[in-house]
């Protein structure tokens, strides 16, 4: 019997089906810049890649049974941390981007420790308030953070005047690497322990799983990638404002995860793509665009509450298989 059986998700027919599909998708996305040359389209995809990293890492924290509502703020920590170090200390963006991730991870774990003993709702609220505190600190930061008017003059990742294409590939690469790292995290015994804690913290601790340690670990890893995404964003858009990382940003990240499917690894990826790209295609509707997003939310709520990942299964069970019960699994 395959000795990694337990840490591998339930796959299709062969062990290689899902990785093959994933590789295929990456290749298609990689060729896109050759087909769609409009800088605006590339820009949208770049933002999507950035938000996807944040969304997937948000879900990583959720798998441990904690529902954080500060992820947008941690993107902000990474963004402002990296931007300020690059701008005021002159470090290269190639250094400050991972550094932004580390700063976010540090702050996340520092706060995660006292918060780890808060249950469910209280944890969610606590993280919400903490996220707000971060934004207020950014706004109160005077000339260091640019205060209300925002931070400008951030050193770019690639020299000024470069087209969007290198950024596209950079963020695509960053996203793929992040996903691989988070995937391994989830489907190794670490991830199993997190899911064990989420299902029953009593049982988990009775078999020796250090609840606090794993919760803080999950938060640390999740915040690292949020900070990484934020730092990348800073060295791409070159201008930052506290409002970008507010509670609303966090709420939308949560929507990306829930829309796609909170029980599936690729759920947040699908959710981000759908909720970012579809309103973009409907851009011509101008101020009516948010209705599209709201519509997507309502469709998922009323028709496929498990998220868009459950769509194939839903179609199958409605049209092809009668009387088969839906299993909730932890498969991607």
């Amino acid at each position, binding site marked *: 019997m395959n000795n*990694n059986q337990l840490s591998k998700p339930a796959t299709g027919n062969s062990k290689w089906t899902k990785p093959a599909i994933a590789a295929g998708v990456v290749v298609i996305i990689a060729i896109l810049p050759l087909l769609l040359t409009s800088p605006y389209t590339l820009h949208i995809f770049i933002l999507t890649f950035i938000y996807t990293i944040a969304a997937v890492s948000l879900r990583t924290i959720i798998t441990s049974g904690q529902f954080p509502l500060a992820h947008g703020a941690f993107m902000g920590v990474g963004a402002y941390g990296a931007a300020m170090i690059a701008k005021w200390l002159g470090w290269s963006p190639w250094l400050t981007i991972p550094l932004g991730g580390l700063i976010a991870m540090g702050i996340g774990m520092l706060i995660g420790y006292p918060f780890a003993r808060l249950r469910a709702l209280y944890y969610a609220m606590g993280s919400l308030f903490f996220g707000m505190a971060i934004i207020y600190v950014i706004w109160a930061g005077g000339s260091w953070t640019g205060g209300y008017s925002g931070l400008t003059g951030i050193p770019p990742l690639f020299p000024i005047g470069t087209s969007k294409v290198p950024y596209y590939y950079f963020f695509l690469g960053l996203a793929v690497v992040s996903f691989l790292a988070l995937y391994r995290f989830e489907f190794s015994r670490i991830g199993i322990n997190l899911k064990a804690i989420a299902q029953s913290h009593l049982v988990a601790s009775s078999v020796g799983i*250090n*609840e606090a340690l794993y919760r803080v*670990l999950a938060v640390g890893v999740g915040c690292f990638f949020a900070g990484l995404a934020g730092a990348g964003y800073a060295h791409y858009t070159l201008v930052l404002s506290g409002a970008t990382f507010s509670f609303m940003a966090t709420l939308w990240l949560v929507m990306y995860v829930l829309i796609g499917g909170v029980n599936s690894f690729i759920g947040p990826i699908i959710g981000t793509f759908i909720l970012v790209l579809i309103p973009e295609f409907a851009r011509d509707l101008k101020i009516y665009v948010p209705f599209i997003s709201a519509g997507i939310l309502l469709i998922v709520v009323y028709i496929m509450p498990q998220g868009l990942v459950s769509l194939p299964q839903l179609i199958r069970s409605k049209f092809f298989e009668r009387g088969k019960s839906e299993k909730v699994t932890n498969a991607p």
Partner: protein
Amino acid sequence: MLLEISGLTKYFGGLAAVSQFDMHVNEGEIAGLIGPNGAGKTTLFNLVTGVLRPTRGKVMFDGNDITNKKPHQVAKLGIGRTFQLNPLFANFTVLQNVSASFHLHPRSSLLDIYFNTATYRNNEAYILEQSLEILKLVGLDGVKEELAKNLPHGYQKMLGIARALAVKPKLLLLDEPIAGMNPDEIDFTMTGIRKTRQQGTTIVVVEHNMRIMDLCDRVVVINFGKKITEGLPKEVRENQEVIQAYFGGEHVA
């Protein structure tokens, strides 16, 4: 003495759930803890395993003071337990429930786990093998791919016991292990408990069902958080006037 509880007291607000409780358990014995509903039996387990913090008192296990230790530390020292309401990893399969419980033995470091080293892979293979053995032992290997939440009640309780065994405990605390089981399952479980003791595990069983007394070397009676009496099963059974008063005359012989 493997486990020594002295003067253990727990107050919830003004109410004493457990009061000045003394008890010891010798290595290799099966001890029974009986008492009516609400007597404090589960609270006692929670205090010993660190789920609750005692207000006063001391708990010594295998030479270690575990009074204020956290549950995962207590597990690491060698105490395994089941729970009365039998929570499980509901969305894991039966096999996953047991293998996830092998967290402590063998222990892979975080780095080993993440980077999928040879140590980790060997450990995982060993864990898989051991999990299947335990499942075979408790008779659940036929349903190993079922989600735990879909199992019938009796099977779930077996799974709870299987899970506790994965900790390779020196001391096993069973909280109402046969509650809700049919007679065949009860026989099977009691045999299993005997076998486990034979393999060297010390066991404390909490139960209402008097049949458990047949298994026990010693029985301790608790009510209103206090120890009422203790002794051989025969003696305690004969102390029936006391017991009858607390049970109100209803018990399963």
